[in-house]
């Protein structure tokens, strides 16, 4: 019953969303004004190399062939799916001939390490502290905390990040201003290397965690305040039910429901990288990679990163859909 009526249609929908998403990502860069072949030639010229006009056309043809851009869009599209079925996103145009997957694998640990930790930390912190503050919203400390968060929350992210960078990287020089680890160090599982990585991650992580926690705090506080006013909470209070039980089983249990969905969506977005963070702190993650891919018209690399992100988000949404009835009995598979 469940498999035929719910799971199979839901899985079909899942694959359809991925298929459509990847298709759109295939065509959009091709409509963009940057032509990767021209960009490559311009790149070569900008290095001062003289190119004989007679050869330029030959080069254009050769590059078009190499990049897989010959033939109609439809032909390219077919070739793309054939390649993708073997797990191959092709080669990067601008770090030719490195395969796209190699570049992604290199950047992925940095981004996931940075974003997974900060997302989970700020979710936990924001929800727990925000929840308690929402329950005790008449207390002075709760109002004070709310005021602080209200001040932090609207700071534009890039201003906050740059501010941290200037203050602790330049004025006080406590933390490095760029990179994921010191230049020239080879990755290893030694304490000094890990400390080095943590030192580099500290400022970007702080910038993400502080603003993230402030935002989770505010949502969570608001949700808890609303749940607190619900009839079933008032009723349990009228009934003299123990306060700890009311807080955990009546308020937090119900306030958590929308926050679970939000957490899953935030985790799904990890794989598209933290664009501004990684640019501000020159962090070697997916966001930086995507930024350079877009600015140079590196179709294959764009495709690779965005496809990954599409798969990540749709998968997490699928998981939330499948497990949600465990949290909320009102939701049914149908």
């Amino acid at each position: 019953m469940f498999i035929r009526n719910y799971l199979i249609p839901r899985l079909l929908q899942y694959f359809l969303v991925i298929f459509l998403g990847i298709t759109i990502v295939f065509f959009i860069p091709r409509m963009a004004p940057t032509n990767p072949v021209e960009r490559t030639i311009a790149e070569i010229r900008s290095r001062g190399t003289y190119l004989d006009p007679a050869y330029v056309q030959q080069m254009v043809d050769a590059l078009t062939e190499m990049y897989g851009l010959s033939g109609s869009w439809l032909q390219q599209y077919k070739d793309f799916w054939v390649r993708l079925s073997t797990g191959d996103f092709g080669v990067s145009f601008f770090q030719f001939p490195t395969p796209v997957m190699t570049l992604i694998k290199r950047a992925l640990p940095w981004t996931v390490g940075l974003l997974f930790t900060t997302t989970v930390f700020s979710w936990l912190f924001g929800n727990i502290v925000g929840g308690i503050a929402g329950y005790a919203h008449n207390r002075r400390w709760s109002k004070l905390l709310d005021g602080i968060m209200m001040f932090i929350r609207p700071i534009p992210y890039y201003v906050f990040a740059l501010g941290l960078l200037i203050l602790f990287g330049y004025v006080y020089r406590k933390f490095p201003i760029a990179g994921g680890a010191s230049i020239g160090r080879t990755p290893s599982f030694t304490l000094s290397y890990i400390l080095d990585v943590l030192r580099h991650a500290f400022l970007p992580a702080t910038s993400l965690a502080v603003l993230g926690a402030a935002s989770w705090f505010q949502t969570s506080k608001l949700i808890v305040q609303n749940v607190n006013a619900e009839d079933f909470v008032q009723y349990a209070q009228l009934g003299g039910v123990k306060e700890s039980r009311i807080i955990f089983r009546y308020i937090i249990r119900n306030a958590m429901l929308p926050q679970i969905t939000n957490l899953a969506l935030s985790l799904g977005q990890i794989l598209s990288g933290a664009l501004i963070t990684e640019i501000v702190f020159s962090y070697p993650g997916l966001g930086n990679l995507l930024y350079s891919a877009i600015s140079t018209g590196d179709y294959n690399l764009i495709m690779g990163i965005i496809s990954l992100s599409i798969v990540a988000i749709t998968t997490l949404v699928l998981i939330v859909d499948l497990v949600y009835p465990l949290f909320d009995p009102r939701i049914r598979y149908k």
Partner: protein
Amino acid sequence: MQDGDVVLRTDNLRAHYVLDIPGGQKVVRAVDGVSLQIRRNEIYGIAGESGCGKTTLMKTLYAAINRPLRLVSGSVLYAKDGQELDVYALRKRELRGLRWRYMAYVPQGAMSIFNPVMKIKETYRDFLSSHLKGKTAAEMFEIAKDHIDKLGLPISILEAYPHQLSGGMRQRVAIALAALLRPSVIFADEPTTALDVVVQRGVVQLLKDIQADLHNTIILVTHDMGIHANVTDRLAIMYAGRIIEEAPTVEIFRNPLHPYTQFLINSLPQFGDAGQRVSAPGQPPSLADLPSGCAFHPRCPKAMPICRELRPDTIVIGEHRAACWLHAERGTAQDAAYS
């Protein structure tokens, strides 16, 4: 009336909503001088139109007032174990100890009073475990099962989530839950509102059964005079935060003294009479801005000059009490009778 029979007594009880508004305060006089004596082993009805302060009175009696509602004057005294207990003088823990064991509450709108993510049996367990010590989960489940079964409700509801129950069933579950620990006083706020007549009958019967079994006091608030006629032993009519008339229910229906009560009763349809029913003209007054004198005078066809100036005292005529200048000469003033 013998004092030993009285289970709940209030004297000139006032509870106001004090709201901070730009440039000062707004005071909503939802309960404005209520003196009551409610007896053991009776169903006491409180009637009145929407916005007259019925629910606020119930909350004040149940000692469940939260800001901006404030107790302004008076006290709420319960007779418990031969002593009078002032609920507003109790500490938080002592008050919590009274809840459900001594007094229970059936709130308005049973549609949303159960935690949507918990089965009914878990709600039962929470209420039981908060008031009974040293019982295992299995024992508490047995108590809940016996209780539900004895009241004639299907045991399967314990395994249901609230959204799987009908409105009438949820209301009955709420009433059953209130009777769980055999309390001396049960407050039921509009338990039949939003239910159709057939379901109303079931709910009313359940209340009556519980009262007949426990011989306790049920305080029933509803604007439905038909329910009052069927269920209550004594009836109070509330208008603009005050009790304007109180008597045994039969007596009120036979001989209403206050013009407002007369309107309420005359608006009920009767067999064989197809004529238009007449209701009180106009709208109930705003509790934040009450008329001078008797609050009913702007709508009263029998208003006299004195009604605009002075608020009528409650006078006592036998078992009948009324606050109306029309009857001021006929009985003794309330203070003499109630002190």
